[in-house]
């Protein structure tokens, strides 16, 4: 039983089933829209979890990469005449490249210092989107042309539900591959003892960089999807609050658990919708619930509940 739950591919199958079955349960397109948003945010958080939960390195600037993806599919077709799908790829590669260049110096830092450095990185990227109004439309943002793949124009919730859903399944599959591979073992080793990893021959800086670049690419793809789906992008997508939201989703769902990333994203996307019944007290309730979850499930929702299950099944 324990083996079964420890299998990193379990979440891939579970996600695939959820993506296939949810449309049968969710009748209105409003619910389908929520599910689509959950998939898109999950994608970003699964990537961030590889960095935070596995390699043990914090990033408070991941919305910067999300924003790069989001603006790539806006600026590419609008100003540069690049087709959307190519702009999406370029956004992902560009985010990866920027992560590679910035990551080299800042991943030497640890703990709070790394947190502040990544925070600065995120603020810097958001500032560029805010100030380069000729390209980005400034604080008001810009419209995003619809994705056009081989003559098929992708629009509407149904289409994006499937694109985001299938992408999330692929994203969890890649994450599971990494976790089960020597790279995944190395990242977890770095998380537990950097010095031990080093004397075993691990180039620690290199592996932190791999996790950082990988997580940036996940975030950029998710950003592109959101802005293509919404048809609009503003600098808030790259902003500080968005970064914090990603970290909160990862921590709330459970660091080091891919399934936790999806649960964390789902909770923080769905809960505000549900809590609208509290009207003016909506944010108070959200904050309170987050505190309660962290107090009673300190390792995050999924690892804490999995721990309870494991104790019950010998």
């Amino acid at each position: 039983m324990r083996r079964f739950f420890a299998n990193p591919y379990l979440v891939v199958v579970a996600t695939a089933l959820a993506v296939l079955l949810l449309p049968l349960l969710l009748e209105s397109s409003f619910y389908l829209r929520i599910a689509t948003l959950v998939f898109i945010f999950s994608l970003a958080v699964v990537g961030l979890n590889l960095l935070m939960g596995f390699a043990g390195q914090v990033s408070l600037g991941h919305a910067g990469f999300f924003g790069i993806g989001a603006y790539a599919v806006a600026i590419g077709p609008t100003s540069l005449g690049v087709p959307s799908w190519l702009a999406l790829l370029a956004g992902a590669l560009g985010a990866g490249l920027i992560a590679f260049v910035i990551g080299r110096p800042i991943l030497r830092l640890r703990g709070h210092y790394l947190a502040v450095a990544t925070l600065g990185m995120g603020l810097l990227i958001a500032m560029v989107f805010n100030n380069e109004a000729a390209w980005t439309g400034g604080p008001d943002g810009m419209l995003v042309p619809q994705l056009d793949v081989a003559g098929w124009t992708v629009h509407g919730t149904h289409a994006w539900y499937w694109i985001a859903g299938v992408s999330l399944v692929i994203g969890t599959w890649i994450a599971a591959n990494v976790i089960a591979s020597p790279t995944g073992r190395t990242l977890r080793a770095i998380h537990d003892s950097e010095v031990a990893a080093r004397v075993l021959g691990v180039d620690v800086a290199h592996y932190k960089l791999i996790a950082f670049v990988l997580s940036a690419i996940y975030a950029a793809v998710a950003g592109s999807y959101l802005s293509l789906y919404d048809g609009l992008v503003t600098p808030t997508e790259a902003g500080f609050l968005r970064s914090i939201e990603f970290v909160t989703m990862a921590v709330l769902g459970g660091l080091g658990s891919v399934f936790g990333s999806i649960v964390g994203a789902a909770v923080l996307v769905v809960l505000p919708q549900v809590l609208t019944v509290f009207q003016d007290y909506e944010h108070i309730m959200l904050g309170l619930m987050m505190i309660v979850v962290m107090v009673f499930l300190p390792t995050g929702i999924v690892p804490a509940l999995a721990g309870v299950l494991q104790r019950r099944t010998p």
Partner: protein
Amino acid sequence: MTVLAVDRIGISFGGVVALADVSFAVEPGEIFAIIGPNGAGKTTLFNVISGLYPPQQGEVRLDGADVTGFAPHTLARRGLSRTFQNLQIFFRMSALENAMVGRHLHERRNVVAHLLALPSVLRQNAETRAKAEELLGLVGLAELAGRAAGSLPYGALRRLEIARALATEPKVLLLDEPAAGCNPVETEEIDALIQTIAATGIAVVLVEHDMKLVMKISKRIHVLDQGRTIAEGTADIVRGNAGVITAYLGRHAQRETAHAQG
């Protein structure tokens, strides 16, 4: 033939001399012990040799090549591995996974192949697992392979660190107090294990406080006191050395006397 040579190593921290003019050479298959009172600089010496601290003076040669100031992971590639006095275990991984991380240098590290879980990665995982299981068997942890490292008893963790270091296939293995905190039975086991390792041709450099263990298995012993070499030789030579006796007993005895006299 020398596999590890340390030549006139010196390092100081903020004016405090931690090591000065320390030299020795170790041969393949030899068990070489470094002893000395607390604060003699034994662990600092290990940190210098394994690349954690770059020395301010002197040279470290591995297999004839100057490797002074090389990064730890580069030294590991060249055949040097170590364990830690204050256990550096990957606590959230299983015992088996700990040993598997030790195979890092012997695995193909193509990240794209890992992302896509190509069949070659799966085959390699199986090879790594088999080798790690073999090493856990060697150190007597085969039955605990699946357990989370964080839940293992202290003596098992000491042996797990040795298995993990062996997984790198080192030429030189530095063991920093492998028997610290172990009961007499566990110490005996580690004693036998060290001899088995040395018999395969690996040079074992040992820092240890358990004198019985040191005197029994070491071919040569190097004695440090306050960062300086005060003696080197076989157990008998070191045991009879006046400087060593003073370092271990003399000052202590003098302090005791002074204390008694008020």
